[in-house]
Every structure is written in C-alpha cells, then in structure tokens.
C-alpha cells in the first residue's frame, strides 16, 4: 500500500503493509524517532503527533488513514537556526528529566496554544491529560507552557534567560 503524507512541510512517500501504524511509519520509514512507543494502546500519549492540526495517538492510526494528510512531529518545530518558543521554555525551566515523554508533551502544548493562546491552568492540565510522565510531576512543564504562551502572544521577548550564559 502506498501512502503519501506531508510531514513537517515536506511530502514523503512510502510503501508499507496495511497494518503499519502511523507511529511505525514515522519512526521506521521516515527516521523521525521523536514520537515514541510507550504502550502501543493509546494510554500514555508518548506517540502523540499533530495530524491536520489535531493531536492524536499515532499508535492508534493506520498509516493509510494518514494518506494525503499533514503531520507535524517534534522534528518540525525548530527552525534551522532557532528553537520553537515551547522548546526554549521547556529547556529554560528544566521541564524534562528523562525526556521520553517530552516530544509528545511539547506537541500537545503546541496544539493547545495554536488554538487557545491564553489558556487557563485547568485548560493546560486538560491538554496534557493524555500525556503521562513518570519523572517530573508536570509542574515545570505547565510553567514552561505558560511562559511560552506569553512569548507567542508577543508579551515577552524570548522568555527568561537561565543563570548559565551560552555566549
């Protein structure tokens, strides 16, 4: 079965068996390993990617269902010379520890902020309800998302600097 899908703005083709999930397609065929296999049944959210603007569990979609659609993965967020504000905020707040849930959480945050630029605390929690994290307790992720939201609204420039200079 042939699938043609736009990933991170670029059109890709692959020939795969029908039972291939979108997650396998991204990881094994397109070498985009940011989306992770955590449970394979749509409970942990580590496989989250954005399809046509909606965050979904890519382990629960067949590759064929993504045919002709647009997919955004974590690899599509940063520009070649600049982090996405959400990635920068996560780094500045040390929001990730082992990092395994990170790409998925960042994409869930992106989908939220794309639609709701000024989310309440409860709305942020709701947006992350499908992303399990065993390391962090979510607090710094939520703070990072609030910071990134302010940057994206143009209220602050580039977010807080850390104590360590990179220059």
């Amino acid at each position, binding site marked *: 079965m042939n699938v043609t899908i736009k990933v991170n703005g670029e059109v890709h083709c692959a020939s795969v068996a029908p039972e291939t999930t979108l997650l396998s397609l991204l990881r094994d065929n397109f070498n985009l390993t940011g989306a992770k296999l955590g449970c394979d049944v749509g409970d942990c959210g580590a496989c989250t990617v954005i399809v046509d603007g909606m965050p979904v569990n890519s382990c629960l979609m*067949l590759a064929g269902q993504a045919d002709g659609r647009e997919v955004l993965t974590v690899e599509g967020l940063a520009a070649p010379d600049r982090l996405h504000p959400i990635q920068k905020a996560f780094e500045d707040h040390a929001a990730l520890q082992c990092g395994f849930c990170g790409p998925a959480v960042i994409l869930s945050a992106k989908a939220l902020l794309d639609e709701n630029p000024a989310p309440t605390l409860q709305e942020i929690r709701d947006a992350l309800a499908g992303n399990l994290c065993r390391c962090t307790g979510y607090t710094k992720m939520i703070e990072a998302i609030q910071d990134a939201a302010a940057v994206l609204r143009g209220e602050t420039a580039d977010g807080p600097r850390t104590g360590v200079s990179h220059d």
Partner: protein
Amino acid sequence: MRAFEYVVARDSGHAVALLAEHGSSAKVLAGGTDLLVELKSASHGPEVIVDISRVADLKGIAITDAGLSIGALVTHTEIMRSRVIGEMFPALADAAHTIGAVQTRNLGTLGGNLVTGVPSMDSGPTFVALEAVVTIVGPGARRQLPLAEFFAGPRKTILKPGELLAEILVPRKNLGKPAAFLKFGLRKGQALALVNAAVSLWIDSHELVFCEPRIALGAVAPTIMRAPQAEAWLEGRAITPEAMVEAGRIAAGEAKPISDFRASAAYRRDLVAVLTKRALEGACALARARLERDGQR
C-alpha cells in the same frame, strides 16, 4: 498486528457494499481508538479492514425536522465544539469531555463509542436519558430503533453482520430538554467510569414539579439502563432537595452493579445514589436558568 487487507469506503453506501462483499472476515474502522487496541492483542485478526473514517455522509450535526441529528462519525471533540450542542445540550459536551484525553477524543467517534457496547461507555447515558433514536443502514432497509434497545449485553449490540450505525437522533419533542451528566472514575482523565449517571427533565414553570424525568445509568448493569421506578416516583412530584435524595436512593436500588478490582458493588450503589441526586440537581439548575433567561419566571 496481524496482516490484513485494507479498503477505504467512499460513502456509506460503498461501506455497506464492502461489508457485504467481505462478510464476517471484515471489521469496520472509524476512529480506531477501540479497534486498533483490540487488533493488537487479538489471537486471530480480521482479514479485511473497511475504513469508513472518511465517509462524509456519516458526519455532521444539524437540527432537522426530526430533531437533533448527529452523524455516527462525529468525533467527541466535534461534539465538544459544536455550538448547537453547547447551547441546547451542554450535558452531551460534558459527557464527551470525560472520554479519554484530547488525543483519543480527536479520533474517537460517537458511533464507535456506542458500537463498543461497553456498559461503562460515557457517550451513551445522556443520549438514553434524552430518548435518542438510532438509524442503522445495511443490506436491508434503513431502520430506526430507540438507543436504549440498541445494546444487547456487555460488548454486544443488535447490529447484524454488514450493518452500520449511521445516525443518532434526539427526537424533536426533546429539543432543549434540560439534561445533566456525571461520571465517576478513579482518575479525572483517562479513566473508566465506575458509575455514570445522566438525567433529563422538564420543569413545569408554574408548579415547579418534575415533568418527564428520565434517568440513565451506566456501568451498573450489563447494558446502560434506565431507572423507571425512580422516574415514576419523581413524575409530578414537587422539586425539593429531599425528593432528589430519595430518587437517588430508589435508583441505587434499581441498579445491578458488580464487584470487581476497581470497586465493590456496594460502593457503586452508593455512587449511583449520589450521582443521580447531583445529576437531578444539575438538570434542575439548568432548567431554572433557562426559564429565567426566557423570562418565564
């Protein structure tokens, strides 16, 4: 997952034709949030997957002459975002919101949730309380039946091979009927319901009594059940906090919960009493708010 053949249906007629062609070796794929989980653990899989997820004529939310019509392929997210539903039946949006998480709601469909036939499904009870009717298409003629009769047992519906659930309709007479839905799970998200309770009722603005109260309970019987004794007791009775408590108690007696590793039957019965009471409170509050808004007080 085991290998299968994959075919994409263009419209509902094509879907029915594909199901007829492949017979019992085919399974229907809509949102996939239930089917794919099943396929991954099944010892024997279907030979053919019929993907109906792009069938446009099974989507859509609209008020028609018959009532509020919701296509089977409407997703839970679409229900949450529908202006029509938000104004007329916020309880339906509340119920959709309790399902899984954002990711599952973006893929999962109302029809898919109903067709699983699990007694703990979150979408069913409110529709049952609103006396919804479902439309089924298949090789034979289109047919309609009350949603309450659609469920045959745990994970069993009355769908015959080759049939598709096409539409869920809240009948015209219930348009605007105040309703409330409450779910109790072990977590706030990604949780299976221990008990679901949905209530719809009218308030007679002059007498302030319960009119046509309907109570639907989930996860406390082999299928979603009504609570006819509690409903009959409420009909025409004055709206008081005590009445709602008593109705909850009666409904708890009608429920047939089991004990399992999530909760005991006794705990579930207790939840039925509390959730029914709170759902009645919620529906009454909505009814009163609407009466005030419409200047009928």
